């Protein structure tokens, strides 16, 4: 056998596979599904590469902007004064506001800032400028002198501000003196890094895990389903090639030839979706995250391999599926059966469910191992649950067949026979449903883990009155600065100061303010201090609820601005602002005023908001899960529809001759009801219970997650409704094929 001849043979077999793919049963459906699944797998692999590139890029830029504190051994001559503070936009996550000032004439600048802002000037990130436009963020910290370049940001959308206060900063605690930035300048100082991403971002493995679990697995299920569409014809072909003396390699080449064209189209169609990310920063819809094109170019080269990897994956799966189809055992190759394999897989189903649901407990509180054990178990559940359902359905099929025979129900007889003899068909049919339910429940559980805390605080605070703002100046402030701030408070907004009792928990809470403020809060405004036992105004109730340290009654003191300024200086006292007309205080203007009056501005927020702020990063991360979850379930719905159509075509072909005997189509409807609706409904019930149970380990330590009962009932109802629709669809296909057969 010559090499040329061998190559020629391979090409011929590939071509035969290609021709077979064009003309086989459900060829169009299979080709479309293969292309779509290869496209989805390529996108997922590309996404994994992009996520990695993003994490690498972030890490490098974070290192490069981490300050190096001045020590006795510092050689550098230049020094910068540095103090990390924070701020937040309304209802959004906290971001860093870094106060900087040159300590020496050659003071180093942080990366991304190309020149020193003047006193009272600030440099903001483009993302912050855009997001805070509605709050007038550009002028909040002083005059805007420029924007931070991407080399100084975690990602293009990061919110960050460098502010040079109008007044001089002094090199004393808490202000640090830094001599440079990044590892090249010396040993980076822990705790001085700007930015909140390092605290808020989830580890890369966790994010990649979400991409794999919520997107890649559904894409592979779609690919698996696509490869098995019209499996009957391919099994028969494989058996015949065996009988004619073909080798495994020959079967593999034919399988590759069959899948090659649609898979290639699908995999390479993903390129236009990635290419822009290498040239422009792309905002991810719904999540709002902005990708870095620089990261993709520098660290994301594996993205280029994604289409090739998807192509290889799809072809490898095509070959494996073909080889797993089994070897023929007789001269009647059409009878190849995979029922035994389904039984083996079904036996493994119970241990897999146990591993996924209880296995994480073995790892104790180590969350990383908990998650990995849970995911390993889940992968096994995904592989085995369809077989478990199929084997149970096959057992029920036997009973259905007997009932059908006894009572003369033709549909039940046919369906019972089919589902008891073809568990593989049932497994293929229910795979999409079971995996979709698992993905759905996992997404819910992860979403709950990320968002529950935030949601609970939101719920608590939703009843609170937000028409009052607390002003918390940063650092030590002087009476003069406090007075300046009170002068800058916009018109219509009036201040009060609350002072705790002299001894904690005992005595009066003193509330001081002008008459406009006191009367707005339904308090007396008398020249002499007045005692009030019950706060009637809701805003005042909120202030007292969140901030006072005990206190048995209110002591109301009328005070002018000078007195209020003096009283607002001690950090134990609370400066609050309300609108005289009861409306919402001008928070953005109050923030901006704080940066004019106080050296480092002030926190301006409604009572209890600091509790909410802690949960906001998790809430934002939860958006990724919702996005991935919706996409993943969407892919699985495609898989369900596709596997359904392929199996219906097959069932329809088998049943078509019956129409001659029965003269009608009723038998198609009843057999579809038993063979399609019943397995899918069982899969819905089993899938819901298993998916909910295996989602339990997804929780914060010490907190179990339970899928709400009404949600489970809804999920079951939706899948059963889908089953009924698919049953009707199957009957329609069978009817159409029967009409075609008669013609």
């Amino acid at each position, binding site marked *: *056998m*010559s090499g040329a*001849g*061998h190559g020629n*043979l391979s090409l*011929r*077999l590939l071509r*035969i596979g290609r*021709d*077979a*793919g*064009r*003309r*086989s049963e459900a*060829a169009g459906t299979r080709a479309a599904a293969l292309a779509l699944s290869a496209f989805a797998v390529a996108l997922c692999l590309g996404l994994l590469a992009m996520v990695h590139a993003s994490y690498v890029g972030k890490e490098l830029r974070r290192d490069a902007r981490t300050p190096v504190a001045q020590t006795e051994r510092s050689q550098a001559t230049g020094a910068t004064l540095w103090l990390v503070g924070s701020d937040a936009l309304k209802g959004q996550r906290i971001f860093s506001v870094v106060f900087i000032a040159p300590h020496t004439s050659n003071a180093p600048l942080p990366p991304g800032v190309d020149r020193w802002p003047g006193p009272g000037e600030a440099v903001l990130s483009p993302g912050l400028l855009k997001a805070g436009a509605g709050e007038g963020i550009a002028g909040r910290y002083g005059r805007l002198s420029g924007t931070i370049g991407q080399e100084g940001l975690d990602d293009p959308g990061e919110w960050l501000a460098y502010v040079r206060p109008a007044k001089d900063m002094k090199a004393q605690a808490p202000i640090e003196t830094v001599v440079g930035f990044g590892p090249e300048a010396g040993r980076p100082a822990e705790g001085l890094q700007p930015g909140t991403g390092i605290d808020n971002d989830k580890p890369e493995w966790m994010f990649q895990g979400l991409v794999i679990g919520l997107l890649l697995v559904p894409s592979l299920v779609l690919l698996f389903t696509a490869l098995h569409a019209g499996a009957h*014809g391919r099994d*028969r*072909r494989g058996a*015949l*090639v*065996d*009988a*004619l*003396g*073909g*080798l495994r390699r*020959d079967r593999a080449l034919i399988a590759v030839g069959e899948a090659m064209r649609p898979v290639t189209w699908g995999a390479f169609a993903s390129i236009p979706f990635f290419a822009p990310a290498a040239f422009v920063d792309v905002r991810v819809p719904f999540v709002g995250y902005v990708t870095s094109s620089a990261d993709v170019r520098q660290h994301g080269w594996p993205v280029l391999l994604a289409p090739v990897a998807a192509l290889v994956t799809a072809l490898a799966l095509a070959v494996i599926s073909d080889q797993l189809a089994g*070897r*023929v*055992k*007789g*001269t*009647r*190759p*059409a009878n190849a059966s995979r029922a035994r394999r389904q039984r083996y897989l079904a036996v493994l189903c119970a241990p897999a469910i146990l591993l996924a649901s209880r296995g994480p407990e073995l790892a104790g509180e180590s969350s990383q191992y908990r998650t990995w054990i849970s995911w390993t178990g889940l992968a096994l559940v995904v592989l085995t649950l369809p077989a478990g359902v199929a084997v149970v359905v096959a057992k029920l099929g036997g009973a259905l067949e007997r009932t059908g025979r006894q009572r003369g129900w033709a549909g039940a007889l046919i369906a019972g026979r089919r589902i008891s003899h073809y568990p593989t068909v049932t497994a293929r049919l229910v795979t999409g449903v079971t995996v979709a339910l698992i993905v759905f429940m996992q997404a819910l559980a992860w979403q709950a883990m990320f968002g529950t805390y935030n949601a609970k605080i939101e719920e608590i605070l939703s009843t609170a009155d937000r028409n009052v703002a607390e002003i918390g100046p940063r650092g030590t402030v002087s009476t003069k600065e406090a007075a300046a701030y009170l002068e800058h408070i916009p018109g219509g907004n009036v201040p009060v100061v609350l002072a705790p009792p002299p001894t904690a928990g005992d005595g009066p809470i003193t509330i001081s303010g002008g008459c406009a403020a006191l009367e707005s809060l339904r308090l007396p405004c008398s020249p002499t201090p007045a005692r009030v036992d019950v706060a009637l105004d809701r805003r005042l109730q909120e202030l007292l609820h969140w901030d006072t340290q005990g206190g048995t009654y209110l002591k109301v003191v009328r005070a002018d601005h000078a007195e209020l300024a003096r009283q607002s200086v001690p950090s134990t006292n609370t400066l609050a602002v309300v609108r005289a007309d009861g409306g919402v205080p001008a928070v953005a203007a109050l923030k901006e005023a704080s940066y004019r009056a106080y050296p480092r501005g002030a926190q301006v927020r409604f009572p209890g908001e600091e509790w909410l702020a802690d949960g906001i990063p998790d809430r934002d991360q939860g958006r990724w899960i919702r996005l991935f979850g919706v996409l993943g379930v969407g892919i699985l719905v495609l898989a369900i529809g596709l596997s359904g159509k392929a199996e219906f075509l097959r069932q329809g072909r088998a049943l078509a001759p019956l129409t001659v005997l029965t003269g009608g189509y009723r038998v198609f409807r009843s057999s579809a009801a038993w063979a399609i609706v019943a397995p899918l409904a069982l899969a819905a019930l089993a899938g819901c219970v298993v998916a909910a149970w295996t989602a339990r380990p997804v929780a914060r330590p010490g907190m179990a997650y339970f899928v709400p009962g009404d949600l489970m009932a809804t999920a079951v109802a939706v899948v059963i409704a889908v089953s009924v629709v698919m049953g009707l669809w199957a009957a329609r296909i069978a009817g159409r094929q029967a009409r075609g057969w008669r013609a």
Partner: protein
Amino acid sequence: MSNSDTGPAPDHVLHIQDLDYSVRDRTLFKGLQLSVGAGESVAITGPSGSGKSTLLSSILGLVKPHGGSIRVTGADVTKLRGKQIAKLRSETIGTVFQFGELLPELSPLDNVALAALLSRSDRAGGYRQAQELLDELRVPRAETTEELSGGEHQRTAVARALINSPELILADEPTGSLDPDATARIAELLFDLPRRRRCGLVLVTHDVEVAARADRVLRLEAGSLVPARVREAVEA
């Protein structure tokens, strides 16, 4: 020719000795013997389920017997593995299945040429040969085999069995799905092969007319092959 040979004669293309095989508690072969010479045709009959098709599967190496040997052109099929058995099937044995077992998604030409490709023979022009055989057997050109009649279907299957010039042809109920005219033509075609091509033919059939054309007719009974007169063999 006898059923009790102890060793293959030089011109035997098939020599089965002491073949044992059972499925669950049912014995299909018990010390079964069979030899087929080059240029000889043997028809095997017997009741349904007696093991006729399993015997052909055993010769193809698709079923592993529990005892005995099956030599095809001297090579013991029961001892061959993987590539060796594939090579034997593709180069030495041609098979015609009951329903043709053509791939519906391929053309008749592709179906026949596929067997030539799988044999990896050096003979150039597998497709040319395939077309010549199809023309010789009067199979019309078609895009897929679904366009063929039953007789054309089976003639394509015969062409596929012949493409590699096998020394042994196995036919499992090759006329089972055909009308009398087509049956007669296919039978004539098949039984003419040993004479024209000097190959052995083992044909399993229920059809008395078809069996009668063979050089010998054997009946599979109680796990053994016994000579039978045509009428009684088929009626059994």
